[in-house]
């Protein structure tokens, strides 16, 4: 769920209030100290996810998607990273929590699926052992019980012959099977929060669809909250309930999936949508990328971080506010943009929508 305070004009499905959020991130800042200065990887981000819901986080590389979620798990190196704000997991504050506390939550109450299943699984231990490890740690199960559990999980994620594959090493698995094993590993303790960091990016399209179906099925069964990170809007449309679009470490647009994809309000989201190739389009048709490059996180542009790449800055009333003022982050359905609601609607329906159909 992505609600802070529901805007009056926000339509959409009924939203649970703050109290129902299982994961609640408030004003999150993640800054890295580097030799060149401070990298503001996440710069004031808030969102909520409720049990049984899926939040899709979209954005370019370097927009802060992965950093945010590594911060939720507390996996940043504390020596070079400054994390501020609030991360509440089921009401428990995770920022500043003791490492021991985080260890009992990781893999247990919150789990993560990583992008590249080849490098994210250890080559030195069997798949079964890697799945059984967190189960033994968090439940105190015996070696035998944990092994049976690993077989059960492999079966659940659709690995054939789990009794024998449990003793295989990751390199003996195909890419899709490795990602399934990774999911089995993340779900072995029935986590209430599952963070999937581009889990399908390294896979081919048919396997990708299978993995998405698997995640949906498992969510139905376990009722977990899922945070799904991707840069693929097609995947988001398939799996997410809500969308958070990130740019330069901030939220630029949020809302229910249908709202954001049908009537996006932020020029950056428009850019993402129009840059997708269309199956129905002419083969010779040129793709229209978003011009420019993602902003430097060391010295982000003043004002709206998207303004150097935005085609609509001249339309904003007032004296160069895009260059001067940082737009307020969207609360509930909305976009962080200086354009008025009417302008957003007009520009989208007149200029953007025709290019999408």
């Amino acid at each position, binding site marked *: 769920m992505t609600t802070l305070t529901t805007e009056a004009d926000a339509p959409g499905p009924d939203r649970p209030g703050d109290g129902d959020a299982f994961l609640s991130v408030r004003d999150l800042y993640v800054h890295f100290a580097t030799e060149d200065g401070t990298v503001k990887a996440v710069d004031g981000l808030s969102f909520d996810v409720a049990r049984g819901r899926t939040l899709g986080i979209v954005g370019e590389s370097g927009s802060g998607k992965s950093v945010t979620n590594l911060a939720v*798990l507390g*996996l940043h190196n504390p*020596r070079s990273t400054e994390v501020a704000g609030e991360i509440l997991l089921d009401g428990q504050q995770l920022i500043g929590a003791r*490492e021991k506390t985080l*260890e*009992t*939550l*990781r*893999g*247990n109450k919150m*789990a*993560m699926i*990583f992008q*590249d299943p080849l*490098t*994210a*699984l*250890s*080559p*030195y*231990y069997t798949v079964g052992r890697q799945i059984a*490890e*967190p189960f033994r*740690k*968090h439940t105190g199960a015996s070696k035998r019980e944990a092994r049976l559990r690993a077989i059960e999980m492999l079966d659940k994620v659709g690995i054939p012959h789990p009794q024998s594959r449990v003793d295989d*090493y990751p*390199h003996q698995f195909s890419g899709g099977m490795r990602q399934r094993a*990774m999911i089995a*590993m993340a779900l072995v303790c029935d986590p209430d929060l599952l963070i999937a960091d581009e889990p399908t990016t390294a896979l081919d399209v048919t396997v990708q669809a299978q993995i998405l179906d698997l995640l949906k099925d498992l969510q139905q069964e376990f009722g977990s909250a899922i945070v799904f990170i991707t840069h693929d809007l097609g995947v988001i449309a398939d799996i997410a309930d809500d969308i958070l679009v990130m740019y330069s470490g901030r939220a630029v647009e949020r809302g229910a999936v249908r709202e954001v994809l049908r009537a996006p309000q932020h020029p950056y989201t428009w850019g993402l949508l129009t840059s997708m190739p269309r199956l129905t389009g002419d083969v010779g048709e040129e793709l229209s990328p978003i011009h420019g490059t993602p902003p430097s996180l060391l010295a982000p542009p003043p004002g709206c971080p998207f303004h150097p790449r935005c085609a609509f800055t001249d339309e904003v009333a007032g004296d160069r506010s895009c260059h001067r003022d940082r737009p307020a982050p969207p609360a509930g359905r909305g976009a962080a943009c200086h354009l008025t609601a009417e302008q957003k609607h007009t520009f989208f329906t007149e200029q953007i929508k025709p290019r999408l159909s």
Partner: protein
Amino acid sequence: MLRFLLRRSLGALVILLVISAVTFFLFYAVPRDPAMLACGKNCTPDALAVIRKNMGIDEPVPVQYWHFMVGIFAGRDFAQGACPAPCFGYSFATQDPVWQTILDRFPTTVSLTLGGAVVFLVVGLGAGMIAAWKRGTVVDKVFSSASLVLSSMQIYFVGPLVLALVVYQLDLLDQPKYVPLTEDPAGWFLGLLIPWLVVQIIFTANYTRLSRSSLIEQLQEDHVRTARAKGMSGRFVFFRYAWRGSLIPIVTIFGVDLGSLFGGAMITEWTFSLPGLGTLAVDSVRNTDLPMVMGVMLFAATFIILFNILVDAAYAFIDPRVRLS
């Protein structure tokens, strides 16, 4: 595994054959005549011819090489007497049988190598692990800079320094010497203590640096992060996940080091006047002593190749992705 060892052993034989040929023919490229050296100042052409014949260097070089190689496998007869296989002939300089000399010298080298290796492996890996575990802290900085300084040291510098201090200044120990372990274990230990420590100082520093950098590299691997994300403790992840992967470069270097040390630690043995294979190799080259050069060379090469095979076999135990066949 058996097929792997068999195939590698055959390969090793080929390599040794090439090494023997190269060494043999290179020896004759050196413009020094061993017969002239043996003949002395008042040498007549007749005496020289006799010496040449006795040394077996009156024949064409390829024929000599053939006799030499046959001797290794089948034994040979010399003016000094019969020489059973493996026969490397008799030393030009001392007239001693080469093979027996090598066998006599080998225990010194083995004692020096194994004693040093145990210490430098344990201490070096340990220090590297502590530095990697505490990376970025004062401990790490002290360990890293100390190991950088120590690994830049040379045995022929540190050795005499330690000798001057421990033996001559403080009179704590006697001059290093080799006493067979079977004769006098305490004497063996005390006699080799200084060489061990000096070898160890330099090698330990190298292994500290190697194990630290290799561990830090492993700690940045994705699968280490995954293990952390599963809730495994920092210590568990460090020892189970990162350490395992860090072993591969260490085993590689350790195999090379051990192999070449078994062939004779020339500088160390020379520095402490220990009668091992290293001093034997240096002496034989200085004396233009062909049979001894060949013997020591092939003996040392065998160990280097042997440890290379062992390292490759060890990979299979460390990394299941390595398949030996």
